[in-house]
């Protein structure tokens, strides 16, 4: 352990704001990327599921070709 106490750890020898800002920004970005990827995947799966249900209601034999590019990336 390089620090004696928690307050020394938080202060980082006077460089606290810089160290914590750098780590905070990095953590925020990594988390943001992760959450975005997850949200994207869930939204896509939800869309696909909704489509599948709709098609089932209309009868499984009806092919639907008019949805070309339905879920195009924004």
């Amino acid at each position: 352990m390089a620090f004696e106490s928690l307050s020394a750890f938080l202060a980082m020898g006077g460089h606290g704001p810089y160290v914590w800002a750098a780590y905070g920004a990095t953590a925020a970005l990594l988390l943001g990327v992760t959450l975005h990827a997850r949200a994207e995947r869930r939204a896509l799966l939800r869309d696909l599921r909704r489509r599948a249900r709709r098609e089932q209601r209309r009868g499984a034999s009806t092919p639907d070709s008019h949805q070309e590019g339905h879920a195009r990336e924004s």
Partner: protein
Amino acid sequence: MWAFIHKLGSPKWFYGISARLSPWFWAAAALLIVVGSVWGLAFAPADYQQGNSFRIIYVHVPAAFLAQSIFVSMAIAGFVFMVWKIKVADMAAAMMAPLGAAMTFVALFSGAVWGVPTWGTWWMWDARLTSMLILLFLYFGVIALRGAFSSRDSASRAASVLAMVGVINIPIIKYSVDWWYTLHQPATFSVTSRPAMPVEMWVPLLIMVLGFYCFFIAVTLMRTRSEILRRESNKRWVRELAGEVT
């Protein structure tokens, strides 16, 4: 080998295999990054010159490594797409570009914050920061070019060509910026070029770098799978998959 490449090229096969691999990379990324951060923040000794502000190295250097590696991976993916027409490679390349830009931004931000205690200013035209800034512009160019085409195939091929041109230029840019920097600021000391780092300092750095790489692979796998669903939403296997999930 060829069979393997062609299998990899099939979105369906890729979707399946990446589902199995992805959790491992997420777990490894989380574990390595947490261990590396705690070690780097609390247990690594302070630098005798810079004190505790040097701990920023544990996020700055991995982000900078990753920023460059992602560009190279993107160019390789573009090459694979152009030569073998493997669509999955292009989907992965498309997903890598924003992540690479984000990593470049993290490297720039942490470098700027690091600059305050070391140089006394938020921005110095330091060789490393300058090449990072140029890399950010290269990423913006690739992203903008991909977005500018209305046909997806043209967009993919144009972005691949630009990524390959960029990757040839990156070392040239890096060396010329280094040369330019030594010409103009010979006296300033560079924060990250230290002669010999003691083991207890570089082991956490290594862990962080590995963790960031795992994170990159995990995110790229996940987003490529999403992109497969998006692009192949009219394919039969995707519909069956959606039906199963219901």
